[in-house]
């Protein structure tokens, strides 16, 4: 049965991957829909460059396709494995890169319709840019930990597996990252919180 690209599948990740390995085209579509938004969000937060983030996401999914026939059911979570691969690819690119922050306004989606005024929408975009710039200034490992914890909303245990470190090390990285972010953003606090002053 042909399914439209945006139809959800109710199979779990491993069952979908097993179906993909048997040649099921719909399983390929569902896996793509399920994982690419999360990977794209993670890669763009790490790299601050949409084109590079797209390359990382495509390469990560390609490795999943290669791995599908060899995947052992009941083993590691597919999501965790994907974040591990994407992390390695992002860190490789960060180390090769010499340029700095490159997020532009165009990389940030427009605020939703619930924004009451155009000015409020601009403030929100401004806050996001400020956060991305601050994250971009963090050391790689702190950036990775803070993005996985507070933007991807993963648990410390899962982050420890992705980063290949202990849970205490993850907690320490996150604490340092938050301290550094607060310090960076503190200089602009009044400007960014202007609309909350009544």
């Amino acid at each position: 049965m042909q399914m439209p690209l945006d139809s959800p599948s109710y199979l779990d990740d491993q069952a979908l991957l097993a179906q993909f390995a048997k040649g099921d085209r719909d399983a390929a579509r569902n896996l793509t829909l399920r994982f690419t938004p999360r990977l794209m969000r993670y890669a763009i937060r790490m790299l601050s460059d949409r084109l590079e983030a797209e390359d990382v996401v495509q390469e990560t999914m390609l490795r999943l396709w290669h791995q599908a026939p060899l995947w052992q059911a009941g083993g590691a979570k597919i999501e965790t494995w994907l974040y591990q691969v994407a992390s390695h690819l992002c860190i490789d690119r960060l180390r090769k890169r010499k340029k700095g922050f490159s997020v532009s306004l165009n990389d940030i989606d427009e605020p939703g319709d619930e924004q009451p005024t155009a000015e409020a929408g601009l403030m929100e975009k401004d806050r996001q840019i400020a956060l991305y710039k601050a994250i971009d200034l963090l050391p790689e490992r702190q950036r990775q930990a803070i993005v996985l914890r507070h933007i991807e909303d993963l648990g410390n245990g899962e982050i420890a597996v992705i980063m290949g470190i202990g849970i205490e090390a993850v907690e320490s990285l996150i604490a340092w990252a938050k301290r550094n972010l607060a310090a960076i953003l503190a200089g602009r606090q009044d400007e960014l919180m202007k609309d909350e002053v009544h």
Partner: protein
Amino acid sequence: MRKANLDDFFAQARSQPPEVSFDLQSRILSDAFLMQDQWARKAAPINSSNLWFDVAKHFFAELGGAMSISSVLAAALSGMWVGFAPPAALADVFPAFLTTQQSDIFDLLPSDNEFQ
């Protein structure tokens, strides 16, 4: 900056994930379908009722299909034609390869017996 403010920043970032372009999704799906097609080709069963035909079909598919086979055949036939009926321009060149000529033989490793 207070912790609550930093959490607001994160909550906003989580609420507006970047869009995945249709172009990226298409590229990812193309990779997936290509992989599945490769697996299907390798796993295609051999029909035992026509074994030689199926073996030949798989062999030619691995070589690159009809285009590659036709190129190889054309090269082979050209070579045979040149061998049996060489063009006039090659008439002087071929005898040197086709006829046997006496050669001088030099013993580069003379026997040790000469020194005994």
